[in-house]
């Protein structure tokens, strides 16, 4: 075990997988000098055939990822900010997510797309979205939301070795955070939630960036004698439904914390799954702590009004228990 920054864990995973398999290639805008920090040093080690700066042309980059993967490469595409998923969305939704089915399973698309998501840094509405709900709805695409350095490394390595398109959502505000990362070839399987804290009173499912706030909320609640069970799904597609159901069967209460806008959020999906499959276990209403259906404003004070925080999470748990 060694303590690593989140961004360093991603960098380590990229180095290890590119070293392990010469078919792994990486491209994107400004990946050579590493505008996000995560691709730093790769060029010197692997050369321009395997890591390369591209023009600004997301619609083409997502399409090229599909073509290169179909032709035998393991592609890592860096999209920088997750808002640029939208400029590259056609090949994601119409090609990447569907081509395997349309060709009767003739091809595999080992593609890993990296991008930073989330608000809280005054980057305004076009650089702060949390767009994984749209990806979840495309079908045929894995959605990964690592909340700490260890999961970042393990999920990324798993994604690069996998045979399906995966979106690796980097929590933009978490890059500098340190956590223990297991030594050696650390892999995290998809669809396997982590129980970060055990508790008997209420289940809190927190996604990606929100896990840290949920942990703080759990600490606050512990002081009031409320024992929260904190579940980090780690991947949204596939979703470890069984782990969430098991936890709700134990606690009888569910609060889901998600940085996406409320309408059709990942939290909505998780709430629906539990209402559908574990209704009998519920002792009260499901609560969602999400971002209101508002674009992220520039001013920090207005961003704070929208983003979940430890207090709003703790309040939601208290409300759920009181109802």
């Amino acid at each position, binding site marked *: 075990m060694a303590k690593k920054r989140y961004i360093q864990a991603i960098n380590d995973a990229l180095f290890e997988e590119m070293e392990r398999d010469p078919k792994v290639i990486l491209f994107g805008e400004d990946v050579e000098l590493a505008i996000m920090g995560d691709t730093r040093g790769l060029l010197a080690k692997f050369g321009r055939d395997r890591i390369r*700066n591209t023009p600004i042309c997301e619609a083409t980059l997502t399409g090229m990822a599909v073509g290169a993967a179909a032709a035998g490469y393991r592609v890592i595409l860096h999209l920088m900010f997750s808002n640029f998923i939208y400029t590259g969305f056609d090949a994601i939704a119409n090609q990447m997510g569907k081509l395997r089915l349309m060709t009767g399973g003739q091809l595999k698309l080992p593609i890993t797309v990296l991008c930073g998501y989330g608000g809280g840094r005054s980057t*305004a*509405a076009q650089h702060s979205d949390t767009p994984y709900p749209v990806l979840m709805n495309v079908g045929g695409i894995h959605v990964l939301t690592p909340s700490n350095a260890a999961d970042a490394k393990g999920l990324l390595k798993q994604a690069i070795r996998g045979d399906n398109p995966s979106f690796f959502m980097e929590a933009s505000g978490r890059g500098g955070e340190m956590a223990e990362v297991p030594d050696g070839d650390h892999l995290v399987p998809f669809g396997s939630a982590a129980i970060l804290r055990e508790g008997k009173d209420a289940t809190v499912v927190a996604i990606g960036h929100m896990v840290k706030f949920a942990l703080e909320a759990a600490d606050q609640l512990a002081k009031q004698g409320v024992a929260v069970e904190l579940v980090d799904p780690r991947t949204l597609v596939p979703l470890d439904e069984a782990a969430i159901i098991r936890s709700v069967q134990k606690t009888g209460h569910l609060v889901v914390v998600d940085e996406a806008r409320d309408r059709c959020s990942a939290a909505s999906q998780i709430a629906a799954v539990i209402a559908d499959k574990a209704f009998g276990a519920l002792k009260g209403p499901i609560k969602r702590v999400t971002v209101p259906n508002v674009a992220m*404003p520039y*001013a*920090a004070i*207005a961003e704070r*009004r929208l983003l979940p925080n430890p207090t709003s999470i703790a309040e939601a748990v208290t409300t759920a228990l009181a109802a």
Partner: protein
Amino acid sequence: MTTRRNNSGPTDGQLLGMYERMLLIRRIEERLRDDSATGKLPGAVHLYIGQEACGVGVCAHLEETDWVTSTHRGHGHFLAKGGEPKAMMAEIWAKRTGVCKGMGGSMHVADLSKGILGANGIVGGGLAIAAGAAFAAKLDGNGRIAVCFFGDGASNQGVFMETMNVATLWRLPLIFMCENNQFSEFTPSKEVTAGEIADRARAFMPATVVDGNDVIAVWRAAADAVDRARSGEGPTFIEAKTYRIRGHIEAEPMMLGGGKYRDDVEIQEWTKKCPIARLRAHLLETRTAPAAALDDIEASIHGIVTDAAAYAEAGEPADPELGFDLMFAGARA
């Protein structure tokens, strides 16, 4: 364009006006640079220093009712098109007195009352928007035109070609103003841009390449383009060759972590080609204005910048509830 349609101008008055406007942009941005360095500004700023002649040389021809779209590097276009320094500063300070009430910030300064459809955080995002505004103007037959400012980097987005195609077919009153500052973030343009950008445009419309650090050259190229647009002849492309003096973003050194993508000597060379110093020398040489008059302009701009910064700093923070009222017209989110 091979032959110039407009051989007269700019007049002395126009030159002085452009000098003043370029200097205003420069001094405002120097203030933003300093306030960013001391951590006073909440978000990122992308500075236009060195490119002022591009925005000013074009906007000198525009009416308040004409439209412009801009980029993430948009302060210069905003001010060149007549945006208020105070309102822009307050926006960048995230105050409710800001031109977008603190909701947009540096990358999104917009003032519809001045025809400024907005800076844009999506590279290439302004191209089609400007074409839409030009289409509306054509339908209205009101003589308005639209200018799309964009970078060399944006010219690699597919929407550039798509917009040129429709603008040409529909003879839209549109000007494509490409400011080639030689970089896309940390990538030299030549590594990601094949051929000459102007050659791409030539497939569709008259295209001209000018020295973007020479405001007179920009003004003249824009005079022709505006003339064509206003007389219903359709779109024109201008590529202004210039240079980005500051980093892509003010936090650049931290982001680079010691990495380098250009030479310090190159930056120094281009700093010497400052479009404002160049115009000043021209004004003095041609005796258009005495040094004292230019110093007076400098002094009055100093006052405007100081006032704008004080106004921004004193403003009330943005309203955290406002977002809910702004998502829809006439309905709360």
